[in-house]
């Protein structure tokens, strides 16, 4: 198991997982999100080939109502 930080929360997930798998496990498959990994934006086209490593800090954001 890997231990990562996702939106400020510590999450444990199985090793050898791509970012795409991780998003699917959170109910976010096919959803319009943007992802930052360790401070760098991950393009949507790279989700499948982006490997998740222990200690990674992920931010997953969406558009919400605001002014």
């Amino acid at each position, binding site marked *: 198991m890997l231990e990562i930080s996702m939106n400020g929360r510590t999450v444990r997930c199985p090793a050898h997982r791509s970012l795409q798998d991780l998003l699917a496990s959170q*109910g976010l498959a096919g959803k319009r999100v*943007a992802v*930052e990994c360790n401070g760098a934006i991950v393009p949507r086209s790279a989700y499948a080939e982006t490997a998740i490593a222990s200690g990674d800090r992920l931010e997953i954001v969406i558009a919400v*109502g605001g*002014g």
Partner: protein
Amino acid sequence: MAHTEQAVTPLVIAGRAYASRLLVGTGKYRDLEETRQAVAASGAEIVTVAVRRTNLGQDPAAPSLLDVLPPERYTYLPNSAGCYTAEDAVRTLRLARELLDGHALVKLEVLGDERTLYPNMPETLRAAEVLVRDGFQVMVYCADDPIQARRLQDIGCVAVMPLASLIGSGMGILNPWNVRLVIDAVSIPVLVDAGVGTASDAAIAMELGCDGVLMNTAIAQARDPVAMARAMRLAVASGRLAHEAGRMPMKHYAASPSSPGDGLIAVGRSR
């Protein structure tokens, strides 16, 4: 009515023309359906949205803002609301650009404190420089200060958006003279962002010569948001039309009656 609104010149931002001069926020509504109805009634083509962490493990079937306001129909204006440093604002808007597939038009907002939500101008200028260099088209929430507005224009922002009174206050156009100074100081569009409370405030902003008005709370917190959205659409269109028509000069004395002076039946009356 469509005829009347077509008679008004379009709003041009970053080379793109918009028929509506009313821009609306999407926060503080009861639910997404009310958001959809109010935005539709406002006639707005540009809608501003915030960028926030998603709820993890959410219901994949739950509707999102993008479902009720399709990006093919509306121009999204992601904002950096809630950011207090240039770094946070830039980071937020870069995420927004990725979220919206390379979309460059953004609303920069760097706040000074939580009590007033007044813009922090030094941080705003710093963020604007970074974003413009990075290819963003920056519309910027700013103080009603003509010197700062001109600096933002010099940096390359595509519109300046001074507050008319504090965000969410509904206090109206508190310093119309400063708004005028900003309009005179820059050649890029000037939009009042923040402070509008009711339809007459929006009309006053437009009559002053603003290119547009951005509002959220005035619509969302009205008793009937959909009706208020329509009122704001009419007020912004009316105010613009009045501005383009050119108001009569104000005269404190030398009143001139609208009816003819000749042909009065009581010609012999004493004056």
